[in-house]
């Protein structure tokens, strides 16, 4: 028996080794290297001045106004888009779950935004809201181009993100809804509970794990927002996010040292968000899967 389990373990590791090795190489190595680069003054325009500077890049970034403005912008986009997605996603999930006909049609339609390339979605919304080309300003009677102001730019960015990613949220929530037994609703109905009471007292508590997982996935994803902002404003009008800042520092200004410090800080932010969700709210994907 132990011989068998030993050989089973060996086979398992042999089968997993290639995938695990590749994952460690493509993510572990670059992130360690990014950390090493972040400790150096390293600007590709002045390569001769390359030298070790310790945490100087971090103190530069963390004391700069730009970094904190961009963190704020990223948080605004994340909070509003994920919040709206949860609300809309829940509505769509309920439609898919309860509709007496047309469920297939709804499912098919919501997969379209999911499948569309983010850059394409960003262009579609940009051209729809931009005053010179779009139908939205005249439809709503706007006197000003939405992209002329910070709030207008934020609004379009958030709407684009919401449109593109709500389907994913809705499908995760739908899977959670399927776990709520109908009998509970029937019993509560007999006891005189209203639809609203049943939703808040039965559906939501039972769906809590599914909601938390969906929120965790989407929050981490939204925090990395890059494509939509890059296409629609490029960070203009004070809509720059942390990923855009990292991009400009690394690729546009070729300041590898400081850009890497920003990259590492974003990585730390993402870990912090995940820890808050998992430890703070008890989000667990393993529990959902009946393992752990």
């Amino acid at each position: 028996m132990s011989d068998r389990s030993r050989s089973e373990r060996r086979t398992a590791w042999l089968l997993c080794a290639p995938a695990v090795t590749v994952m460690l190489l493509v993510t572990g190595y670059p992130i360690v290297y990014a950390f090493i680069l972040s400790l150096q003054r390293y600007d590709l325009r002045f390569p001769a001045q390359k030298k070790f500077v310790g945490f100087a890049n971090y103190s530069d970034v963390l004391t700069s106004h730009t970094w904190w403005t961009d963190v704020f912008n990223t948080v605004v986009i994340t909070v509003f888009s994920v919040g709206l997605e949860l609300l809309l996603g829940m509505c769509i999930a309920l439609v898919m779950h309860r509709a007496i006909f047309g469920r297939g049609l709804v499912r098919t339609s919501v997969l379209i935004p999911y499948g569309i390339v983010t850059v394409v979605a960003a262009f579609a919304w940009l051209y729809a809201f931009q005053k010179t080309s779009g139908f939205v300003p005249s439809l709503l009677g706007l006197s000003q181009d939405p992209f002329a102001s910070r709030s207008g730019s934020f609004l379009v960015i958030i709407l684009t993100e919401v449109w593109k990613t709500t389907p994913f949220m809705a499908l995760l929530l739908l899977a959670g809804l399927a776990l709520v037994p109908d009998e509970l609703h029937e019993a509560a109905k007999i006891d005189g509970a209203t639809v609203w009471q049943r939703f808040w007292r039965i559906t939501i508590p039972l769906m809590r794990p599914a909601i938390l997982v969906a929120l965790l996935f989407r929050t981490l994803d939204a925090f990395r927002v890059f494509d939509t902002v890059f296409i629609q404003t490029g960070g203009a009008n004070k809509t720059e996010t942390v990923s855009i800042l990292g991009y400009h520092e690394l690729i546009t200004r070729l300041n590898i040292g400081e850009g890497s410090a920003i990259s590492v800080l974003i990585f730390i932010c993402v870990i912090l968000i995940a820890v808050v969700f998992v430890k703070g709210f008890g989000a667990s994907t393993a529990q959902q899967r009946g393992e752990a």
Partner: protein
Amino acid sequence: MSHAPRDRVKWLIAISVVVLYALIPVLWMISLSLKKSSTIGTDTSFFPSDPTLDNYSALFKSGSDFSRALVNSFGIAAIATLIAIVLAAMAAYALARLQFAGKALILSGSLAIAMFPPISIVGSLFNVWRNVGLFDTWPGLIIPYMTFSLPLAIYTLSAFYREIPWELEQAAQVDGATPFQAFTKVILPLAAPGTFTAAILVFIFAWNDFLFANTLTSTANARTVPATLAFFTGASQFDQPIAAIAAAAVVVTVPIIVVVLIFQRRIVAGLTAGAVKG
């Protein structure tokens, strides 16, 4: 079961709202691509007044980077998908079927890597790729695509493989099949649909990537469609070639929509399999 007409109307409205929500931006892109490029900028109506296919023929005329970008996008996404699926299928088979320590670690590790912010490794890759000659090449994009395609594939495949009734393999052997026959004739047909679904999801992810494609390429040599769209230039640098971008956007969207429509059931199963299990 019969429903009151009032209920039917209520659901009809709810369903129409959802369908319109999903379709309007797509219809808008199509209508924009059919407008004459000279009228864009003045004509802001939803529907084109004088539809034309000129934008599409301009897109594919010789010397345009777009056809090349389509080839790059397709080739890079397909190769990345193939590598990820082969490596992940081996790992997922072990995760679903064999007992060994470290199983939970591999699953949670791949989930963590899936949540990894790509911007964090862009700088390192940019720096290394320029020195080792991978900058602006296909492998230069395929390698970083492993960061998201492998975890996604491992997670989805292990969820699917866990559902396979593996006892059938033994049953087939009891009935006289060789181990090879049992695997190829019984297990493979059961594993194929899930594997195919995971491949579609990985392909969509790779096809969608913009950050790596934007930072690790510089010419038509390896630039994929999303990056090419972002750097399309008009007559002057202040003039965005809206009609051309709209036509290109429609061209890259149509295949994805067709795939999504054909395989919708599987995609839904694949998207939710990894996250929430019933």
